[in-house]
């Protein structure tokens, strides 16, 4: 029997607002433990939450970028559970009226577009961080636990997909695309390694062609795209193994172990956990007016998928469009400026994704500090296209420009890289070479074509490589035929 995996992904995105979700403490990564805390995010008696408007604008932007509906009214709920790094022992989250709902994200997998449904995007607060001492950091054998509440109350957006993903690879592409959208929006630093984006996956399998869903297993602790893909792939195989050996998959939460490459059981769910959700009485409902939503929508930047499509339409090769789209904003701006300055899109994209990126990486220079603008790149491309420089000389021109030696034509001039296209100069060089090789003319007239190559090489030598080889070739043929 063949099995179809059914996968849904929950992505937690930490926002990089100036202040936390419900208090004035700064949002930042790292730092001395328990230095960015106040009565509210420490859950001290009597402290109250106040909603951060900027965080609501960020989740609205994420929702709109995912084609979600923004609710006109949304409420916070308390999710009650006891945990040492959850200071109030409830998390302010959302239950039945999230800020955003019913959107989708289109992803490209193997040249095919797949539309993945987004069930909801809701707003909540992050917890503190527990560090278990000794026993390899495992909670049950730990000698003690340290608590850091710097992260407590950092705004967190949870994006919940519908169970529309069908493979581990697809899940990875979905997660990557979502990350690039969040990064594009500038609402999160979107760094997996700092935990500012975190994933949980719900995985089940069913016989191919079956409509009913199988029993789902939640897997946690994947901290890279690669581990997300590996964990899902492992889990699919594990479930198939269970079912094919006449077992049945149980509803549980499993923990991905990066080192051993397996998932293992964390806890078995008996029904669903009872979080005793109820409306947060310390906060009033949020009202998202159409004007407010429209204002956010207006300020949305171009999304990666739209951008790739635009590049392709401008003539950039498909693979290059993807690479260019993923480059940082300064390099993409360089592309847009070059095209505006008249450069052919395909050449501009090739130069940027090839030589420019390579040079910057080698020189360890940020794109925003590079001495190359769109006009300069357009000029360089034009020089290649009109034969002013050879394509190999153009790379040297680029090096000069990026090294701050001046505009492309100036660099080509001072570095003596301009091709000689002046017919007079070339004619005398050709005449000199032909005079020195009289037998060559005879061989050519006898039908020896390859002698032309030899003669062109001689002319290049005489002109120290600066002659335009096509022009030289043409002149030699004219002379010898004449």
């Amino acid at each position, binding site marked *: 029997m063949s099995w179809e995996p059914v996968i849904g992904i929950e992505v937690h995105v930490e926002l990089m607002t100036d202040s936390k979700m419900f208090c004035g403490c700064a949002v930042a990564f790292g730092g001395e433990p328990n230095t960015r805390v106040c009565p509210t995010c420490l859950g001290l*008696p*009597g402290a109250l939450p106040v909603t951060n408007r900027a965080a609501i604008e960020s989740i609205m932007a994420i929702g709109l970028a995912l084609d979600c509906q923004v609710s006109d009214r949304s409420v916070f709920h308390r999710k009650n559970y006891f945990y040492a790094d959850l200071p*109030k022992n409830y998390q302010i989250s959302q239950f039945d009226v999230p800020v955003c709902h019913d959107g989708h994200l289109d992803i490209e997998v193997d040249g095919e577009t797949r539309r993945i449904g987004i069930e909801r995007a809701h707003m909540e607060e992050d917890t503190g961080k527990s560090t278990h001492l000794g026993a390899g950091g495992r909670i049950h054998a730990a000698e003690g636990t340290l608590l850091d509440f710097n992260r407590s109350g950092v705004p967190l957006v949870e994006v919940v997909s519908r169970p529309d993903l069908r493979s581990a690879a697809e899940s990875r592409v979905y997660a990557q695309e979502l990350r690039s959208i969040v990064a594009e929006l500038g609402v999160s630093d979107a760094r997996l390694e700092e935990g500012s984006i975190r994933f949980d996956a719900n995985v089940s399998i069913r016989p191919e062609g079956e409509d009913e869903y199988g029993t789902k297993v939640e897997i946690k602790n994947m901290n890279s795209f690669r581990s997300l893909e590996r964990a899902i792939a492992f889990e699919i195989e594990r479930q198939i193994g269970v079912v094919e050996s006449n077992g049945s998959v149980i509803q549980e939460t499993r923990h991905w172990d990066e080192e051993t490459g397996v998932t293992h059981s964390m806890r078995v769910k008996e029904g*669903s956990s009872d979080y*005793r959700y*109820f409306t947060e009485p310390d906060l009033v409902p949020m009202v998202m007016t159409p004007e407010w939503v429209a204002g956010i929508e207006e300020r949305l930047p171009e999304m990666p998928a739209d951008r790739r499509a635009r590049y392709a339409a401008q003539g950039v090769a498909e693979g290059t469009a993807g690479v260019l789209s993923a480059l940082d904003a300064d390099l993409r701006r360089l592309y847009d400026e070059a095209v505006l300055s008249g450069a052919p899109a395909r050449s501009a994209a090739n130069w940027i994704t090839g030589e420019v990126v390579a040079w910057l990486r080698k020189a360890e220079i940020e794109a925003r500090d590079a001495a190359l603008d769109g006009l300069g790149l357009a000029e360089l491309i034009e020089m290649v296209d009109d034969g002013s420089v050879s394509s190999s000389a153009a790379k040297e021109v680029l090096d000069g420009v990026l090294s701050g030696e001046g505009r492309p034509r100036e660099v080509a001039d001072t570095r003596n890289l301009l091709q000689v296209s002046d017919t007079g100069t070339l004619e005398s060089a050709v005449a000199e070479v032909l005079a020195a090789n009289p037998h060559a003319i005879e061989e050519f007239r006898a039908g020896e074509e390859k002698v032309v190559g030899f003669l062109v090489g001689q002319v290049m030598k005489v002109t120290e490589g600066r002659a335009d080889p096509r022009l030289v070739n043409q002149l030699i043929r004219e002379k010898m035929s004449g």
Partner: protein
Amino acid sequence: MIAASVSEAGRLIRSGETSAAALLEEAIDIASRTEAQLHAFLTIDSDGAREAARQADADLADGIDRGPLHGIPVALKDNMCTRGVETTAASQILAGYIPPYDATVVTRLRSGGAVIVGKTNLDEFAMGSSTENSAYGTTYNPWDLSRVPGGSSGGSAASVAAGSSLLAFGSDTGGSIRQPASLCGVVGMKPTYGTVSRYGLIAFASSLDQIGPFARTVEDSALALSSIWGYDPLDSTSYRGEYPNPSAGLDRGVDGLRIGVVTELSGEGFEPAVEAATTDMVARLEKEGVEVIDVSLPTFDIALSAYYLIAPAEASSNLARFDGIRYGLRVDGPTTEELMARTRAEGFGPEVTRRVLLGTYSLSAGYYDAFYGQAQRVRAAIQEDFARAYEQVDVLVSPTSPTVAFEAGARTSDPLAMYLSDICNIPANMAGHPAISVPVGLDEAGLPIGFQVMAPALGEETMYRVAAEVERLAGFEISPRVLGGAA
């Protein structure tokens, strides 16, 4: 006493006849003579208070007048956070807890020049109607030391009645200001929900809690309210619009007003003396030109049941933070879960435990709709009942408490009897409306009887206008036995 009211004390301070320091020393002196019997205070901050009084006098000497509470000795229920001064909510679980910040009300009192004498006793986490649920001992009624002062703000009520503060503040979730005010013969008022910041008030039931004043006179009560209320950006439920002027109608009389007598708040369970005092006051108001209308609000009969689902539900969540991890009591255990469980088992008293369990149960999956959900629907119905009533009348009146102060211990083993103490008070909390208790007389045993005036949201001006007339007509004198009063 040097002054019988805040307004009188204010005049005497400004004329130089007395000083903030002298008023404070008198309050401390009264406390030293009465506390052994009353136990109104959990903490008396003599040093902090003396410094504040000295500053208040120095300010006045420099021509800085901070308003009506300048130099006035006030007491705070011990569920309001005071920076640097122990705040326990009368719970073992917060023994020794010293807040690093002031509640907004405390900030406003300090900047208004008030002198904070100390922190008063309460039922643990404000859960109770007799102040017997305190982890630090019962408070007794200044009028009869064998009786309770009411609760949960019993310490604040007893302190104002005894004179160990001229003004006090409490919190009212389901009658916790008005009922003890009634039992102690002082004026107690719960403002419109959202008008006084809850920031720094240790939450019992967030959607019902409201801080309000205890005073010796209606005028003082209005002055105190004006000093603490107003929009606070730190409390999201804070009201942002126009606020009424509580003092504007104090001298206007009641001629032409329409008063509704709540028919549900009489009969069975109401003491004859209480009913008689209420009827008598209504008759006197009628003579002053008030139109009296009997009004039925049928949902009042089920308000108490709904309240005992909503308030414990919110409390079960609000009190979850007391886990022994970050502050307060910690009882160690082999695991974090065990540490939390032991801390809470040991740190919470029986009534708090009862309500946390009740609330946890009513929020649980499968029970939510029948309990918490249903209670919220009742709450909406109560609000509709009120809205209909206020189409006919300007204010509603009733006894504040069905009985006068009861004997200590009389209801401790019967939670339901205790819960019924607040039957007249809870509807105003469920609707978020203001209400005040004004003492109108004594029963044959010399125990005070309170008269409740309720008004629609932001109806404080009219509410105080009626309360001032009730006070004038009653001519009530605060003379508790603890001070050798003639009662």
